[in-house]
C-alpha cells in the first residue's frame, strides 16, 4: 500500500467542486427524505435507513475516474516513473476509494440513525444498524474493485458511463427473464421465451452481482458461503484484471 497514492486520491476527489457538490446531494437526499417523512408528513418512511442504491451512488461518485482521469491528464506516467509497481498503485487506489466511500456511507447511516433517534427511538434496533453498516462496507469494498477495473480500461470518467450501461443491460436481462410464457402469443414466441428467459434471467442476476458484489447479512446464521466465496472471487478477479490491464497499457508520453 502506497500511502501517498491514497492521500492523493482523496485530495483529488476533494479538489473537484462538482464532484463534492454531487456527493453532498447524494449523501443528504435520503436523510432529508426520512426527516421530511417523520417531521413534516408524520408518516413512517418505507425504510429507516437508505438502500444499497444510495450507497452504490456514493461509491460511483467517489471512485469514478480515479485511474482514468490520471490516464486522461497524462499524470499517470509521472507517477509510475517512481519506484512503485502497478499492483501497488492499483491496490492503493482501491483502498482509497473503498475507505472514502465507506466513510461517506457510514456517516450517512449515522445521520439517519440520529434522525430516527429523535423521532422514533423505539424503532431503533442496534443489531439492524450494525448489519446495515456492515453491508454498506461490504458493498463499498466490492463496488470499488469493479470501478477500479472499469477506470483502468477507459480514460476520464467514462468508467461511470461504462458501469451504467452494463447495469442497464443486466437489469434488462433480468426484466426479459421475468417474462411469462402466457404473456406472449402461442407458437414460436412462447418457445423462444421458455428457452431464452431463464438464460437471460441468470445472466442478468450474475451481471447484477458482479456489478455490485454484495453479501446479504440479514440472516447471519444462514449466510450462503458460496456467495461469500463469489464475492471475494469477484474482487480478486477485478483487481487482477485492473493490474493486468494497466501493465499491458502503454502510457501516453510526448507528442509523437
Amino acid at each position, binding site marked *: 500500500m*502506497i*500511502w*501517498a*497514492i491514497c492521500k*492523493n486520491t482523496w*485530495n*483529488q476527489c476533494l*479538489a473537484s467542486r462538482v464532484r463534492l457538490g454531487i456527493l453532498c446531494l447524494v449523501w443528504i437526499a435520503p436523510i432529508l427524505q426520512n426527516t421530511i417523512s417523520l417531521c413534516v408528513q408524520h408518516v413512517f418512511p418505507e425504510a429507516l435507513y437508505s438502500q444499497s442504491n444510495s450507497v452504490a451512488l456514493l461509491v460511483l461518485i467517489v471512485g469514478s475516474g480515479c485511474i482514468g482521469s490520471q490516464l486522461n*491528464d*497524462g*499524470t499517470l*506516467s*509521472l*507517477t*509510475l*516513473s*517512481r*519506484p*512503485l*509497481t502497478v499492483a501497488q498503485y492499483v491496490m492503493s487506489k482501491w483502498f482509497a476509494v473503498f475507505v472514502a466511500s465507506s466513510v461517506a456511507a457510514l456517516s450517512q447511516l449515522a445521520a439517519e440513525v440520529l434522525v430516527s433517534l429523535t423521532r422514533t427511538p423505539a424503532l431503533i434496533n442496534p443489531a439492524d444498524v450494525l448489519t446495515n453498516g456492515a453491508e454498506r462496507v461490504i458493498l463499498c469494498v466490492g463496488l470499488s474493485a469493479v470501478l477500479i477495473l472499469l477506470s483502468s480500461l477507459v480514460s476520464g470518467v467514462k468508467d461511470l458511463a461504462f458501469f451504467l450501461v452494463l447495469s442497464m443491460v443486466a437489469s434488462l436481462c433480468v426484466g426479459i427473464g421475468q417474462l411469462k410464457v402466457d404473456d406472449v402469443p402461442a407458437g414460436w414466441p412462447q418457445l423462444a421465451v421458455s428457452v431464452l428467459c431463464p438464460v437471460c434471467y441468470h445472466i442478468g442476476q450474475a451481471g447484477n452481482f458482479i456489478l455490485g458484489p454484495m453479501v446479504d447479512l440479514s440472516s447471519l446464521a444462514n449466510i450462503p458461503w458460496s456467495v461469500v466465496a463469489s464475492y471475494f472471487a469477484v474482487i480478486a478477479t477485478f483487481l487482477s484484471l485492473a493490474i493486468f490491464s494497466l501493465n499491458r497499457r*502503454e*502510457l*501516453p*508520453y*510526448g*507528442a*509523437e
Partner: protein
Amino acid sequence: MPENESSLTIEKSGIRIDGLCKTYKGGKVKALNELSVSIEAGEAFGIIGPNGAGKTTLFGCLLSFLRPDKGTITIDGMPPDALEVRKLVGYLPERLNFDKWMTGREFMHFHHELSGLPRDVRLSRCDELLTRVGLDPTSWTRPIKKYSRGMLQRLGFAQALVGNPKYLLLDEPASGVDPAGVLLLRRLLKELKSSGVTIILNSHQLDQVEKTCDRVAFIQQGKVNGIENLQAGPAHDTRFLVRWTGFESQIHVDLSALFARHGANLIESQPEYCIFVPSGIDTIASILKEMLTEGYAIIQLTPEENRLERYFDGESKKSPEDKSG
C-alpha cells in the same frame, strides 16, 4: 577490487540500447528502426533530430512507458522497468501534466514520498530543490494551475532531482523558460554533470545541447545517423562572417594568405563577404585591422552558425543513400 570485477562494473554501468524497434499503427509507422547507442555513466548525452525522428519514442522506451517491438535497453545492466532503475532515474517530461490542484510544495512532497525517501528530511529537501531551480518561494504554496509555463518547467526540473538520480532524462528542459532560467538551467546541468550525474538531453535548442553535452546523437527516421563528439577537436571552431562595401575588385589582396598569416582558415570568399574560422578569439582583431589597412570597408562581423548547427544542417541535407553508405 579485482580487475575482472571492475571491468564487469564498467560494463554494467551506463545505458545500452541495442537494435531498438518500435512501430505504431500496426507496424505502418516505424518510430524506431534498429536504433543502437551506448551512453556512458557520467556523460552528458544530447539527442537531436527533426520532428518525428523518434526522439520522444526513444525517451518513452527508456522510461519503460512504451514497449519496444524488438531490441533491448539496459540501464546499469537492468531493464528500464526494474524498480531499482526507477530509483536511479529522474525525468522531466516535455508535457508538463501535473495535478493542477496541488501546490508546488505538495507536488514535491508527493514525489518525495512516492520515491520512498525518509519523511524527516522531506520538507528541507523539497524546499532546497525548489530554491535550487529558482522557483520563487511565494509560489510554493500556490496551486499549480496558477503557474506559468516557465514556473512549471522549474517545478518539473525540481521534481526530476528528487531522490538524487544517477540518470537524468530531460525532454526540452528550457522550453518556455525566461533567459535567466535558461542560464540557471545551464549552470545546474553543469553542476549535476560535475557531480557525476548522467544527463540525457532531448532538445531542439542546439546551442543549449552544445553547451551542455559531451556527445550528441543525430536521430533521423528512427535511426542514429551519427554521433558527434563535442569534446573532440578544437573547442572554438566558430565561423565568422565579415561583410564589406566598396569595390573589392580594386583591392588586390590574397585573402587566403592574409587569413593564413593569422592562423585563420578561410572557408568561403565572395565579392562582398567572406567566412573564416579564427585560430583563437584574440586573432580576430588583428585580422580586421589588416583588412582595414588593405582597404576593406568592413560593415559587419558576426559569428556564424555554431558547430552543432552545422552538424545538424549537414546531417539533415544528406540523402538516404549517403546515410546508408
